[in-house]
């Protein structure tokens, strides 16, 4: 690499920045070519995911057209299929998961950054990171064998006291009867959402902790100097500073929750009618549908599954792009990891 100055710039006033011309040697040109190619390969791979999904889904989408978005059935052999109910349940599960995970994620992130003594901070950071690294199948087993039994009691309690709120109603359940059957509460959207919340919480928490820890010490200490308590400081300094991180982290967790497969598949029993009752038995999700049907599907049925996968892919992409936009746009975003 040779750096040369332009001849005519020698007489120019020194204040102006001089123009540098970089002459690349052959080794550097090869280096640039190789790295750029690798970038393009990655880009092509990622683009290929979308292109191939569209390509494979084309048959099914052309056959049913716009009703793909409104049909509440999945019978590709009779040419009646659509993702209306599946998408509804997918979003409902993700919504339940985020609603449960979000307060815990914010509180844990604040706890790690502001409350815990510095000596133990790295422990909690490691534990939350570890929670994010535990494989989803492990969470699935835990949810199916341990949590489900515990959560049914909670479901029954919610139904008997708050059953008048539509989302907590359960058709076919009689809270007064001592012989009430527990199966009306099992395999529900709520329980699947609880398990997915376990996976989503650490992801959200990591992003928020990252952003909260970038609060300028001067602003924190300024709040304290003005007589604020710790919570007062958190309210007026940390939370407003980290707003972008909170929104971005939430969206990132939402993206993960939408795509979760195995844990949801293990817990739910599939149903295809739209209902807002989250405690009721039966739910669905795009990824669980694919995992359930990929094996038995005919060529056309497979194409229908690809169409469902494409819809999931599009939604997660939109959610993730929005998430990174929020994080990058926030005051703290320039150097954050999300």
């Amino acid at each position, binding site marked *: 690499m040779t750096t040369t100055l332009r001849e005519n710039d020698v007489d120019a006033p020194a204040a102006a920045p001089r123009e540098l011309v970089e002459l690349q040697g052959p080794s550097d040109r090869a280096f640039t070519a190789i790295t750029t190619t*690798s970038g393009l390969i*990655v880009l092509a791979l990622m683009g*290929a995911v979308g292109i191939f999904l569209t390509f494979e889904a084309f048959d099914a989408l052309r056959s049913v057209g716009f009703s793909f978005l409104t049909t509440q059935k999945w019978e590709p052999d009779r040419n009646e299929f659509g993702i209306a109910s599946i998408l509804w349940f997918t979003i409902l599960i993700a919504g339940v998961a985020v609603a449960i995970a979000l307060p815990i994620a914010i509180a844990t992130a604040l706890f790690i950054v502001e409350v815990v003594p510095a000596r133990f901070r790295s422990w909690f950071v490691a534990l939350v990171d570890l929670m994010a690294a535990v494989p989803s199948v492990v969470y699935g087993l835990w949810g199916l064998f341990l949590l489900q039994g515990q959560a049914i009691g909670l479901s029954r309690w919610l139904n008997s006291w708050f059953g008048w709120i539509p989302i907590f109603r359960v058709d076919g359940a009689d809270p007064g009867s001592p012989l009430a059957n527990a199966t009306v509460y099992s395999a529900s959207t709520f329980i699947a959402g609880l398990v997915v919340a376990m996976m989503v919480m650490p992801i959200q*928490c990591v992003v928020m902790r990252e952003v909260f820890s970038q609060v300028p010490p*001067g602003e924190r200490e300024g709040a304290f100097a003005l007589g604020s308590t710790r919570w007062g400081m958190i309210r007026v300094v940390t939370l407003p500073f980290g707003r972008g991180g909170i929104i971005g982290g939430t969206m990132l967790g939402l993206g993960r929750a*939408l795509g979760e497969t195995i844990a949801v598949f293990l817990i739910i029993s599939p149903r295809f009618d739209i209902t807002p009752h989250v405690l009721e038995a039966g739910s669905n999700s795009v990824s669980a549908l694919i995992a359930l049907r*990929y094996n038995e599907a005919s060529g056309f049925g497979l194409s229908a599954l690809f169409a469902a996968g494409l819809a999931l892919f599009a939604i997660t992409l939109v959610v*993730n792009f929005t998430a990174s936009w929020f994080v990058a746009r926030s005051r703290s975003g320039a150097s954050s990891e999300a």
Partner: protein
Amino acid sequence: MAVTDLEAPAVDGAPSRRTVLPGNNPPAAPAVARVLGKWSKDDSLLLAGVVMSSLATTALLFGRLTPLSGRLGFVVVFFGIFLVTYAVMTSFTESGPSVVDRVMTALLTSAAMVAMFALGSVIVYVLYRSFDALIHLNFYTQDLSQAGPLTPLTEGGMLHAIAGTLIMTFLSLIFTVPLAVTCAVFLNESGSRSASFVRTVVTAMTALPSIVAGLFIFATFILVLGFERSGLAASLAISIMMLPIIIRASDVVLRLVPGSLREASSALGAPKWRTVWHVVLPTARSGLTTSVILGVARGIGETAPILLTAGYTSTMNLNPRSNAMVSLPLAAFELVRSPQPDQIARGFGAAALLMILVLILFSIARLLGGRPVGHLSQRQRRKRAQQSIDDLARIERQRNLREHGLSPMSSPQHAPAGAPNRR
């Protein structure tokens, strides 16, 4: 005026000719958060007293006074009573904002405790349920080909799934690491607009649903190219999952390499690839290892893509190019769906092995990644010092050679120019 200004240094002479290092005013130390606030013995005693009294009140409510029942209910009622008592007790000595502060601190702490308790319960429960399977040695040395659903736990094991996991992980490492690191270098060194576009796409892809990655390989490798379901297809699917994760993490690590190191290398005349190869990558080595390990920890636990691309088998298959190959998460997933308790125990055993594997990988990553970029361990520092001494010896040797061999040519040229400068 101008004359005096010019003359002042001329009188002194030496300072104007000497190179002034910019080190005279060191850069301001980065702002570090101070430890504020304190926690007195009084506070601890108050907290302990409040916990005791609310525990007692809750026990009274549950056993004697009201028909409340249930473990979860106990915890919730206890927590409610605790918060109220704590607020009341604090309000005797503190002002309003301070009471709110105490209550909120208690809330934040208990939320973190809930999260930790959940993590602990996952780990303990999976280990507890898998205990029966894990204590038998045959669990690690046999496959399931001879053991049906009704065979007791003293026969059959997970060797085929362990082998499958290792093969798939190894293959996907071969596929991803070179591409991911090169791409991360591209993102950092090129600085062009296309690099930032690639970065945006990669970031969005880190949360690609794993089943979509499986579908993609299923569509291309198996349906279009006509290969059968195999370990190779599964490792390709895992690679699609891992690639954006490793690129993203490596990109962050490479960005932390100080620009001054790059500039120093360039200033010494090193071409760009030498700067990257000899300066940037070695500096970021521990961080890069960490990002690769974290990517592996993520990829090793993926079930959905393997379900679509590898198929399930109960026999040992060491050939990734043909026939079904099973991995630990897939084995766990398939086995727990059986109604037989022994199969479920085997499934939990596979999940426990997987969890332990992830724990080990994770601990290694923490150990390596605990150090910030560019900070060296004791051993590395000694190695660098030795290298530096060797370099000095080498340079001395070459100078001696040059002075003995080429002195008539070089020294007379330098002598007249250098002499007046020295005093």
